[in-house]
């Protein structure tokens, strides 16, 4: 598969501070890649280099088969810190951005109308941007990124601040764009959102790439090898019975206190264990644990940084979740 973005040995410094160091990255054409990382990891700097807003100090970047500068008009970008010209009308603003992005000048009004209808804002074309609600403004900002129908779309925290209804609309549009062959880079702190939308993930920390894998690869690599069992009726002698099951290394009570978590060895056969557990009696819950991106994020950061940084990442996750 060809690459929409090829980053080779890229580094960027701001004075004494190293923002990105020796970064190699290939983003396959047509993929929807989640770019993860704690604040200050180097995500935004990398994206700005892909957009040729910043120039790398070292290494090379190729975007859509060209230099980053030459591919500029074929990229759509929704920055994390985004805004609008307050006194411009929505139509004026979107037309202006579309023109700057090189969209054909003929039929630009129809293009704006079409996209406003697609994002469920049909009646705001003549309104000034400052008259729109925050949610509406965010949708207009999203349109500014896609109005010229780019081949590569970079979305930095697209769901931040959106209510659930508007988030669903945006989610649908992102999926549609991806289905139409647009390569999408999605930067987010909302791991569950990334997990449901993205098919591959890149985790950057301290300016370096720490993870670059598909969802299946992530699940395999970070498989917790754990089984959650909650019997309908628990008896005191049940815990020793669980410890004796083949392939079970350890048993500990669940966090909610209603069941047990069984750590499995490499030789454990989940199908066999499921059968044996059901033989012990009826179960309220029986589930092979699946890794979440939250855990992957924390684990990778912990590995890279140590316990203190991991705590910070957990705090950020909680903050983003709340």
């Amino acid at each position: 598969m060809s690459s929409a973005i090829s980053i080779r040995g890229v580094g960027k410094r701001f004075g004494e501070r190293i923002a990105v160091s020796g970064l190699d990255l290939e983003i396959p054409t047509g993929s929807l890649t989640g770019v993860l990382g704690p604040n200050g990891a180097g995500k935004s700097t990398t994206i700005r280099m892909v957009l040729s807003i910043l120039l790398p100090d070292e290494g090379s970047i190729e975007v859509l088969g060209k230099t980053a500068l030459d591919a500029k008009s074929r990229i759509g970008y929704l920055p994390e810190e985004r805004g609008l010209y307050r006194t411009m009308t929505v139509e004026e603003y979107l037309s202006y951005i579309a023109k700057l992005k090189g969209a054909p000048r003929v039929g630009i009004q129809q293009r704006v109308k079409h996209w406003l209808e697609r994002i469920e804002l049909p009646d705001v074309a003549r309104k000034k941007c400052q008259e729109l609600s925050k949610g509406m403004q965010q949708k207009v900002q999203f349109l500014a990124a896609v109005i010229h129908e780019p081949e590569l779309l970079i979305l930095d925290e697209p769901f931040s601040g959106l209510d659930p209804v508007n988030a669903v609309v945006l989610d649908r549009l992102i999926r549609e764009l991806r289905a139409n062959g647009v390569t999408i880079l999605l930067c987010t702190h909302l791991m569950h959102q990334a997990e449901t939308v993205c098919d591959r993930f890149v985790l950057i920390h301290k300016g370096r790439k720490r993870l670059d894998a598909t969802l299946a690869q992530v699940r395999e690599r970070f498989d917790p090898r754990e089984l959650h069992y909650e019997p309908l009726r628990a008896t005191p002698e049940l815990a020793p019975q669980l410890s004796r099951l083949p392939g079970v290394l350890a048993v500990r009570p669940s966090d909610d206190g209603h069941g047990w978590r069984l750590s499995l060895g490499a030789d454990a056969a989940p199908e066999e264990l499921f059968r044996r557990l059901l033989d012990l009696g009826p179960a309220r819950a029986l589930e092979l644990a699946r890794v979440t991106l939250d855990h992957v994020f924390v684990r990778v950061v912990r590995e890279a940084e140590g316990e203190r940084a991991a705590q910070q990442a957990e705090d950020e996750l909680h903050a983003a979740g709340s």
Partner: protein
Amino acid sequence: MQRILDVAWREFRHTVMTKAFLLAAVVLPALMWGMAIVLPLLLHASPKPLVGELALFDPDGRLFEAALVEFDSTRLGAERDAKLAEIQAALEQNLPPTYRDTLIKQLERLREESAPKVQLIRLGEAEWEDAKASVRDGKRLALARFDAAVLGRDRAANRFELFLGEDLTRQHTEELRGALQRAVVRARADQAQLELEFVRGLVAQPSVVTTTLTRTGGEAAQNDMARLFTPLAFMVLLWTSTMLTGQYLLTSTIEEKSNRVMEVLLSAVSPMELLTGKILGQCGVGLVVIGLYGGVGVATASNLGYAHLVQADKLAYLVLYFLVAYFMVASAMAAVGAAVSELREAQALMGPMSLVFMIPFFAWFFISEHPNSTFSLVLSFVPPLTPFTMILRLTSAESVPLWQVPATALVGCLGVYASVWAAARIFRVGLLMTGKAPTPRELWKWIRAS
């Protein structure tokens, strides 16, 4: 290039089509122009005739007699009619246009004037204090006290006293004072047995009708004040249009940074394209400002008969030096706008720059009076001040060597190049910077590091 033009057009349109701009650049000059036409009409008022009693204390009565002649309404009326006839007769002759204008103005003034109706009363010493009270009460216009010595040749005694009521206007005071002064002269002439009109004819200095022969072959009335203030008017227009548009550029850049639209723009255009587009757009705004204010200036000057002071070559110099001044100021303003996040922070960085641009205001009088002095010449070759100094010199009365125009324009262009070069570096670094505003030292680092 198309992107640059798109940015320029947005910048131009969204500056020009705002209420603030309409107020500052359209309504204000329109009001000024309107005032230039309407104000003279509003200020025009027909003078009221001087009517009332004037009491005189004159020891021997000779001055009283002379004053009677001076205030004789029949004599004054006849004199006025004779003067009117004289002017009308002169106007029928072939006169220089400027002299004709002067005569017409005199004629209009004479027609509006009415002869005073002043009744004279001669006082004795005993009546003096009562007479003062009557002036205080407004029953009499004034009270004059003469000493016999005023008719002699002793210069120290050449004076008289005049006591006025509080309500007398400046014009009526002048009329009274003038008539009594003339009465003293008349009395002296009688005393010397000379014919007053003969003497007056001898000592009357001729009036001078000054006409400027313009380079374009025309003739125009000479007005020293207009000549003095023309360079200042040109410089103020240049300064205002440059600073106004520079300020627009500063605020629009800060606005794009503070409302977070900058990163979206930079994903579509390069910082240099953005900077160029913004500068070009505001340049258009500046030319509109010059066109509007300059148009009002030209219309007003033509209306007042000073069209020769705003000739085409001077207007061409204005546009040339506006471009030099504007590109220097605009690039600096854009750089400052990119470096800060709030207007308040910008003002701190703009302080030293504003002081430099105030120098032409402090020096305008000297430069326009001495355009070829060493000081003026040196200032013309100091890039930030080049355009302002040159416009003062080129619009002053004295000619400036023509070679200095291309030479200073070249120096100005070098200044523009340096300014845009430095501004581009600050602009690129500063656009995405947030937080604390940089110090001038940090700005210098940005220039060197980029």
